[in-house]
């Protein structure tokens, strides 16, 4: 069971959160301009890397805010978390 630092509420147990997949994958600004391949890549293709990974979490049973977490997918180390609009380098 992870302990995740909500940037608004502080460290809490994993059951309070909902996972939201890879961070920094924006909904395309003008989907109609994308080719089928580009659109498909947005829909279905995500990084699946070992090491530090930026991912989205929602404090569903708390403040209900979405934020980002840097987690090491190899060791499950929670490197830090940061708010929407902040940079990954700001994670703490």
């Amino acid at each position, binding site marked *: *069971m992870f*302990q995740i630092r909500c940037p608004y509420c502080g460290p809490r147990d994993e059951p309070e959160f909902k996972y939201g997949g890879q961070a920094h994958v924006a909904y395309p600004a*003008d*989907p109609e301009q994308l080719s089928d391949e580009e659109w498909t890549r947005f829909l279905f293709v995500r990084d699946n890397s070992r090491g530090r990974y930026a991912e989205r979490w*929602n404090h569903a049973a708390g403040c209900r805010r979405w934020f980002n977490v840097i987690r090491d997918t190899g*060791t*499950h180390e929670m490197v830090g978390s940061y708010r929407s609009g902040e940079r990954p380098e700001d994670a703490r």
Partner: protein
Amino acid sequence: MKRLAGRGRINQDRTISFTWDGRAMSAHPGDTVASVLLANGIRVLGSSVLMNRPRGVVTDTMSDPNAFGQIGTGESSEPLMRLTQVEVYEGLTAMSRIHKGVLPTGTDTGRFEKRHAHCDVLVAGAGPAGLAAALAAAEAGARVLLVDEHPHLGGSLLGEDVVIDDRPAHLWVAEVEQRLRDNPAVTILTRTTVFNVGDQGAIALMQRVSEHLPEAKRRGRALRRMWQVRTHELVVATGATERPLVFPNNDRPGVMLAAGVRGYLHRYGLVPERAVVFTTNDDAYRTVLDLINAGVDVTRVVDVRPDPQGWLPRRARELGVEVRGGSVVMDTTAAADGALAGVVVAPLGGGETELITCDVLAVSGGWDPLFDLHHYLGGTARWDEQLLAFVQDNVVAGQRVTGAAAGIFGTTACRRDGHLIGLVAAEATGFGSATSGPAAPEAADVTEQAPADFVRVAAVDGDESHSFVDHHRDVTMAGIERALNSGITNVEHLKRYTLVGTGTEQGRTAKVNAGRLAADHFDLDFHMIGVSNARPPSQPVTFGSFAGRALGARFDPVRTTAIHSWHVAHGAVFEDVGQWKRPWFFPQGTEDMDAAVLRECAAVREGVGMMDASTLGKIDLRGKDVGVFLDRLYTGTMGTLKVGRARYGVMCKADGMVFDDGVVLRVAEDNFVATTTTGGAAGVLDWMEDFLQTEWPDLDVWLTSVTEQWATVAVVGPQVRTVMSTLAPELDVTQDSFKFMQVEDAVVAGMPARVARISFSGELAFEINVPTTSGLAMWEAVFAAGEPYGITPYGTEAMHVLRAEKGYFIVGQETDGTVTPLDLGLDWMIADKEFVGRRSLRRTDMLREDRKQLVGILPVDPNDRLPEGAQLIETAEYEIPVAMIGHVTSSYESAAMGRTFGLALVRGGRSRIGETIYAPLLDRTVAVELVDPIIFDAEGTRRDG
């Protein structure tokens, strides 16, 4: 074994009794079942799992591979309990079932609890290292949780005759315990096992709260308590376990581990009549000296090393014990009951054999540090050539291993290391400084002679089928060799093939030997082979412990509407929709479900019906940009909605698949209410919140779930205007004044209400929304007003039939995450604007003409009702395998049409209207005609009454 008066940490002044296989046993407070059996001369506990060999107690700890039994009777009976751990109490019943238990089949009556806790430093194990670590960390200021599986603190010290600071060790333990108990920041949990270590210091504990007490004294107390602890630092001080040796017939009851023999002496006052000791190291001589001290005849020490000259062997010799270096036990003999009668001793490498009579053979093949907890988060181990043992290889963040678990042997060295580790752990949590902390205990342990690197005595006749590597699983040297000769080169494969290291005992006494024997077989360095990995849980944990008190009604929350009590009082049969209880149908008299649903449907089509629609999700949206926001989510336009109007909408996920649907009401310029499906409400709110927070934070929109704030009574049917006029005389419900999809605030039955003309049945309908607190009153008022017209309450099943007659799909019934709005024939709802998922609707796959599309189905036999989920195929005659071209999503009997009908998803279905296809069932094949999904009232004339 026999009991010595005045010895052991038991109360010999009091006698208690319990039964073993129905036989009364005499015990003392402080005994375990294992110690009592030994004291009562029960050497054979039962027979082994595969080979039916007689087996007995091997040691006094958790590592015993044989000492398992069934404890208790009836529904609270538990299988495979560790007899070395089960404390006896008056009235205990235990049964000999050492390798296979019996599962009770009824309801477990034991009470299980859960608790959460936080600490800075969690110390697992209260031996010399753990105690020293806990004390150092606590006195540096850290909050400490000290956990030990025994009833008392002290760990290995309980089973040894050791002096600390010039006094018996137990006095040192008592002093440390007192200092810890006096510290309010320290919690001590005995009879508690760490069974899992998770990420970020999540530690799971199992505490045996009252299971060591007689039933009468357990009243009101939990049997066990599961702790979920979050700790900053974990100190693993779980000690070490002695390793047996492999030789022919090494499994006879009476062959024990050397430390176990002295453990039974010091803890329970039990000694053998005549003992032989077989060892590869100096430590076993402590057993020799302690037994001699207790007046036991230690006939012979058989030491593998050619010339044992450490201080311990020398001391043994001085006391007159015959120490024979360079020799081995090459076989054992059995008494009539199968227990040990004697051992055959011979020089290492062959020579003259000698038979020595004894009732106990104390064996030591060295010591294995126990640091399973280190492995759970990816910790690794390396083989230490000096120690001849595995020790930790890497550091796991937030964890430290100390004492014998770290390969540090000797009480003084363990205390010193534990002390330092305790200071370091405290410092890591922000307390004290490890470098300036109080000094560690002085004085060194006396050094011992190096142990011999020795595992196994080969059988003289080459028959290795009675040389046991894993007693618990009956894995012999022959079995290991068979596996290795068959090509297995990996210990994990060896484990699965032979079962070595599996089962309840998990190979604490077997794994290392198995790995070393494999290494020998291939003539490899041991570190190339290793041992199989330890995985949680470290001990079996019952399901009851995980469930805790979340049983029965507390298993999952139940949501009921404000009108629930009325439904119950009127005999509703309920359906679970998510966590909601919804009336499914209201049977009258002896009606079955089909009859009730037909009656309810007919009432709605011909007169007037009412239903509780309170469970529909309701999301209140406020802000100046709500219209823009909804336009981006729904396939249709919502921003153009006028105040006081409602519109039906469908939402897709980015992949273009239908996600949810519902009616959106605009109640003010900057205030909309979106209704969702009952089951989808929470997901829709989360999804909207996600877009607002992460994609469009610039939009001025605020979301609130108001599902539970409103109760909704739907009043439906051709006679509804009459009922509404009675209820709300001031509200003009004529067609010209109150149009379809119009929303009005009005007083209904004297209560302020929001009334909307929304229909999910195709009939003229009004939905009356009131605050939840008025829900029941409104329902009763509607029922009373409608009674003269035979108003009929109906449930979800009738609602489903009525909407299916109109071809209205249900999310999750007609859709399954692979269905687009186009597949449902909702082309007319795709507005000319961007919305989430729109781009997906023109992906190549979405444009295929053979996609499954929503159609209506009419079985050619109007009385034949298909099961929902039935597959559809092209032809009446078929051979398996046959291509499926669709499936039935809804299937009912229609009161209005007097026949059965359904909805289905069929490949290219819309262009096949009028054709006949087939549903192959187990007992028949049903011909069905494909029709337009709107089967009833296609012109929609009934909507306006």
